[in-house]
């Protein structure tokens, strides 16, 4: 919820620079394939773009780059899968999940699986990892995650008020892991796919102390792959984990994931088949699209589970006035904005992208994007708003938009709004760029802006991941939005177990923040453009947690 820090950082840097994500393989859609008919090549080695991980201890990581590695070498209770276009979860480390009547106690019966060093994976491993995550001594970025998904006493434990023994996680026996929640959490099972909830090894962590997670040679893995070699800044080598419980289903033997910073190098290496998969942007994207149309390789597109928007600081200047905010929001023609600035992505009239779940429902299929239906005249709204503030001459109004680093994209974006606001209302918009990302985030967190570009990527498959960002107590609510109605709907919805009722609550919340209060101007949902050579099959690009999942990958006809 208040999380996915780095990814969110990256998403915001959509505005700043388009390289980080796009250099990689961030497409998140599976292909519809029939693996039965395919011949499996003798050489099952692939080369793709990879990322440095911060640590092999999932408890201390918070970035999609690290989670990419964790997705492939660790297995949690459940894992994310996409079936027939619907993203859901399937059992992984757990064999069976049962709950009590009021859904506050979850019991996970664990599968009989082994670590790569031959030891059995036990319920104690889960207790260790979950406790470690919330332990203030670990000082994890995601320390409060257990609290966010409703685990009993997680907050108290993190704040040092109760001991680890009071935390709502328990090993009933070696193969039974039990979690007690303080109240029902509608998205608890989906959230269990989160990478930092994978099991961990207390014996190794104790023996290695602070060094735990820094050296792949001293780690044990329970996922379909192991880290066989790693050189920071150069490459991560994944090899099939022979002790994995479902090893016979894993066809890929080796994956060399190269850390490459230059988008142009990625494209070049992809074209010469030194890489089997690549993302692209700008001119490269157009070029690769054309070649893909000619059948040279495959082009996969889809929605990224993220939204980009402008924060309006509701405490600053004329933005205190609701009508002024509404007018600004309505003045933006999203399609035109995308045509001018990005030449890609999808226009956003809501804050939840496609394919996000609310329990058993697909939120966006149930609820139309609220801003689409609004047909008011922005000029009239602005006039009224300024009148309420006692301002007659809009040219006296000056606002500032805060950006990340100056780049061609952040410049085009800001100038678009500058021109739009000037042409529509005669309001002057100043543009401010930050020196670099840390500076930008610091300023944004402090609320030192009138308008600020931002974005959010979901941590887990539930619309709550987006809505929870803008409650008054959220650390991510940088525009200082404060609406008791919104807070109530969002908080109630998190506890409600009836999906239909939850959808209704979120619908009201979305309407409140975007239409009635206009605290944000959503601009776009990011798209995904991923290119793969025809022989690369079965690649899955997870929506939540990491950039690629190798479990079903194989090479056929290279």
């Amino acid at each position, binding site marked *: 919820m*208040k*999380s996915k*820090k*780095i990814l*969110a*950082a990256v998403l915001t840097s959509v505005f700043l620079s388009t390289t980080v994500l796009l250099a990689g393989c961030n497409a998140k859609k599976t292909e519809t394939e029939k693996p039965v008919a395919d011949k499996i090549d003798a050489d099952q080695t692939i080369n793709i773009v990879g990322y*440095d991980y*911060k*640590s092999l*201890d999932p408890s*201390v*990581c*918070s970035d999609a780059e690290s989670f990419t590695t964790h997705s492939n070498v660790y297995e949690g209770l459940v894992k994310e899968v996409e079936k027939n276009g619907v993203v859901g979860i399937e059992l992984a480390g757990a064999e069976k999940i049962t709950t009590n009547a009021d859904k506050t106690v979850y019991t996970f019966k664990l599968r009989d699986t082994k670590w790569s060093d031959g030891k059995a994976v036990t319920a104690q491993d889960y207790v260790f990892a979950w406790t470690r995550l919330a332990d*203030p*001594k*670990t*000082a*994890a*970025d*995601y*320390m*409060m995650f257990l609290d966010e998904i409703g685990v009993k006493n997680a*907050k108290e434990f*993190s*704040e040092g008020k109760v001991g680890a023994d009071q935390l709502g996680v328990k090993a009933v026996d070696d193969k039974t892991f039990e979690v007690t929640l303080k109240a029902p959490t509608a998205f608890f099972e989906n959230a269990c796919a989160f990478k930092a909830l994978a099991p961990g090894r207390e014996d190794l962590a104790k023996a290695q102390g*602070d060094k*735990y*997670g*820094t050296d792949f040679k001293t780690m044990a893995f329970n996922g379909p792959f192991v880290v066989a070699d*790693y*050189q*920071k*800044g*150069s*490459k991560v080598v994944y090899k099939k984990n022979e002790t994995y419980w479902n090893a016979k289903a894993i066809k890929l033997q080796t994956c060399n994931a*190269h*850390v*490459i*910073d*230059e988008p*142009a*190098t990625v494209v*070049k*290496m992809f074209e*010469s088949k*030194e890489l089997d998969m690549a993302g692209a942007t700008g001119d490269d994207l157009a070029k690769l699209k054309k070649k893909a149309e000619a059948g040279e390789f495959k082009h996969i597109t889809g929605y990224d589970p993220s939204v980009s928007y402008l924060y309006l600081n509701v405490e600053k200047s004329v933005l205190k006035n609701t009508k002024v905010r509404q007018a600004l929001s309505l003045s933006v023609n999203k399609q035109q904005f995308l045509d001018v600035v990005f030449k890609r992505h999808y226009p956003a009239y809501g804050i939840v992208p496609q394919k996000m779940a609310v329990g058993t429902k697909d939120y966006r299929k149930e609820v139309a994007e609220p801003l689409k239906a609004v047909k008011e005249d922005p000029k009239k709204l602005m006039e009224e708003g300024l009148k309420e503030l006692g301002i007659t001459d809009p040219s006296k109004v000056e606002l500032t938009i805060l950006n990340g680093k100056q780049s061609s994209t952040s410049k085009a974006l800001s100038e678009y709004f500058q021109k739009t606001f000037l042409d529509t209302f005669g309001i002057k918009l100043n543009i401010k760029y930050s*020196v*670099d*990302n*840390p*500076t*930008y*985030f*610091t*300023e*944004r*967190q402090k609320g030192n802006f009138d308008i600020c570009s931002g974005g959010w990527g979901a941590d887990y498959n539930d619309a709550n991941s987006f809505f929870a960002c803008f409650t008054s107590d*959220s*650390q*991510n609510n940088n525009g200082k939005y404060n609406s008791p109605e919104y807070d109530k709907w969002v908080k109630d919805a998190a506890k409600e177990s009836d999906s239909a009722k939850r959808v209704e609550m979120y619908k009201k919340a979305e309407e409140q923040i975007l239409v009635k209060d206009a605290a944000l101007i959503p601009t776009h949902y990011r798209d995904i453009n991923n290119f793969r050579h025809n022989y690369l099959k079965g690649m899955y690009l997870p929506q939540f947690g990491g950039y690629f999942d190798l479990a079903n990958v194989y090479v056929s006809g290279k």
Partner: protein
Amino acid sequence: MARYILKRVGLMFITLWVIATVTFCLINSVPGDPIGSKAKALSPTAEKAIRKKYKLDQPAYVRYADYMKNLATGDMGESIIFVGKSVNTIIKNEFPVSARIGLQAVIFGLVIGLSLGILAAFKRNTWIDYLVILIAILGVSIPGFVMAILLQYGLGGKLGLPTIGWESKTRFFTAFKYTVLPMLALSFGGIASNARFMKTSVLDVINQDYVMTAKAKGVAKIPLIFSHILRNALLPVITILGPRIAGIITGGIVIEQIFAIPGLGRELVSAIGNRDYTVIMSLTVFFAFLYVVSLLLVDIAYVLVDPRIKLENSKK
């Protein structure tokens, strides 16, 4: 000589201390901190815990004192972003890589650059001379990273030369093929300036009286070139060698990025982006250390090579 070296080493530590202090002040005055880049929107509880763990809740002077104390004992601290990684380990793992590519580039740049310079000087105003001048102009005006990308496009993936990469297990002793393109990119500028420098130096010596004397007393052409001209012409080259060695190790920053070489330069760039205080500090001190050591070595080498030069304290 011994006293001189001792004095220089003493000065070296003072220089390093000044550099460390200035870097510390600079980093701490830049807005944004490791927490800001590591994780935006942390819950207050988590942020408090993280700040406590890395002592970021302490005032700067306390952290400064701590850091200096550890540095004095050779402990360069631990990364804030790559949890648990000590800077000593980072240097141990990555310096050999930077050193390999740097040294190889320096040697290659010297051999080719000096040869071209000598050739140009002796074949003055012929097409060889003009060609060398052309190379020199290109070398000085095309930045290394442009060269790197051109090489990557032209030769990467061909002739058995990988576009990017490095053998991680062998580090310093990685296969030659991985080093070819980065070496060319890194040494291109060096070749050019070495050639120009050497040419000027040789021309300078050729016109000296003692060369004429040697010629007059009938020294054969080959001994004349090697022991009379080149030996003297090489002297000034030593001056530029020291900074060049240090510079090329650090100058590999961009090249390391482009070729995905797991070296220290790349590490420093990413540390700066992440505000990874300890890593920035320690790597800067380490680079500064390399630099001052290479300057010292050059000065000593100078004395050894040229008997005319006396160090201040050895003349009594």
